[in-house]
């Protein structure tokens, strides 16, 4: 990625893009999604593609613009799913932004603020998907993108415990889960659920073949529900596992689980309140992982109680084990 570039420490957020051809503060540019390249006068223009999803109509238009402005005719898919147009001359910023705006394509942002959310395909078309991650990413982009924070603030949405969107490495991550419930009369004792369960949370009774379920081992992936031929395993509830304080980079930190089965409609509150806590407690340049370490997870959980309250208890044990 491009983070070797000097961070903007001056808190100037919005860069004027019109008529800026002559005087340009290169530090300011990064906040507007323009990233300086090694090559003289050359910048990468990072587009805003929440969840990495684009309509083909838009993609066609973007490719025309990229073809016109990239001096080397190349684009790059960023690690956070957004399309980057490489080798753009900074003197063309006004023009390229105007052209992108015309097709409804916004430029992303870097620096100390809420970044473009990433997401897997989610339940719309991925058979493993349990939550509509794309819908959530779109919501976060509309509601929170660009909100100033002490340092960068990355969010992501995974639709299932395979966690392709790496919620464990996010400042705030949401991973889809489903709680299975078993209906004995519909069960034929075929043992497929025990075969399908990769976590050994279901074993078959040696006599009847019926499942013996261990919720402590269950990671709530829903494989049993999907494998069951007679619908004896059903979904009781869907939701998100919420993880906070993860990061990658030079010193990766694994996020801690702070909530299970948070329903879709509570996700905006969870983000809102997390940003509140982060802004109130974080020093400039500190990721939320560092703040949690310095101030303590308990302080965060207390602040989050109105949102997590009813859904958190299952994880109090886990967080205590993690040395809160």
């Amino acid at each position, binding site marked *: 990625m491009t983070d070797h570039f000097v961070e903007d420490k001056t808190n100037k957020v919005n860069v004027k893009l019109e008529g800026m051809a002559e005087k340009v503060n290169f530090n300011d540019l990064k906040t507007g999604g323009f990233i300086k390249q090694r090559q003289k006068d050359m910048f990468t223009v990072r587009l805003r593609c929440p969840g990495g999803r684009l309509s083909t109509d838009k993609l066609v238009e973007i490719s025309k613009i990229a073809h016109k402005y990239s001096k080397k005719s190349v684009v790059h898919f960023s690690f956070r799913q957004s399309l980057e147009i490489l080798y753009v001359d900074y003197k063309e910023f006004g023009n390229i932004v105007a052209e992108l705006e015309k097709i409804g394509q916004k430029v992303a942002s870097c620096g100390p603020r809420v970044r473009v959310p990433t997401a897997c395909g989610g339940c719309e078309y991925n*058979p493993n998907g349990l939550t509509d991650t794309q819908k959530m990413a779109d919501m976060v982009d509309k509601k929170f993108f660009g909100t100033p924070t002490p340092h960068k603030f990355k969010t992501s949405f995974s639709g299932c415990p395979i966690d392709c969107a790496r919620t464990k490495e996010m400042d705030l991550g949401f991973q889809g889960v489903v709680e299975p419930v078993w209906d004995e009369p519909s069960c*034929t004792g075929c*043992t*497929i659920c025990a*075969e*399908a369960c990769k976590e050994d949370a279901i074993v078959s009774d040696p006599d009847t*073949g019926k499942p013996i379920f261990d919720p402590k081992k269950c990671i709530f992936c829903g494989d049993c529900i*999907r494998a069951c*031929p007679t619908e004896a395993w059903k979904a009781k509830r869907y939701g998100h596992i919420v993880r906070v304080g993860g990061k990658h980079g030079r010193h990766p930190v694994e996020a801690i689980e702070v909530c299970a089965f948070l329903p879709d409609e509570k996700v905006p509150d969870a983000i809102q309140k997390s940003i509140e806590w982060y802004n109130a407690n974080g020093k400039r340049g500190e990721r939320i992982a560092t703040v949690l370490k310095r101030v303590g997870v308990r302080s965060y959980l207390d602040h989050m109680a109105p949102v997590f309250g009813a859904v958190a208890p299952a994880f109090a044990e886990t967080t205590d084990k993690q040395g809160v």
Partner: protein
Amino acid sequence: MSDAKPVIKADATLDLRGVMCPINFVKTKLKIEAMETGQVLELLLDSGEPVQNVPKSVKEEGHKILEVKKEDGHFRLMVKKGC
């Protein structure tokens, strides 16, 4: 498993023991496509990945799994073709 279940008769059989994912599912799909709605296909699937994946894919395609029997190291399934 109930005692007095009528014996399900298969219209065709596909032995997929030793066939890997996702080839086993593709073969199942092709076989079912050549059958009539309501006909029953008998499937033999290895334990492990094949039985974890093929039945749920078959279900997602709209077919019904009528019966599953665990045998030595593999499963025997009866699948009724849906619409």
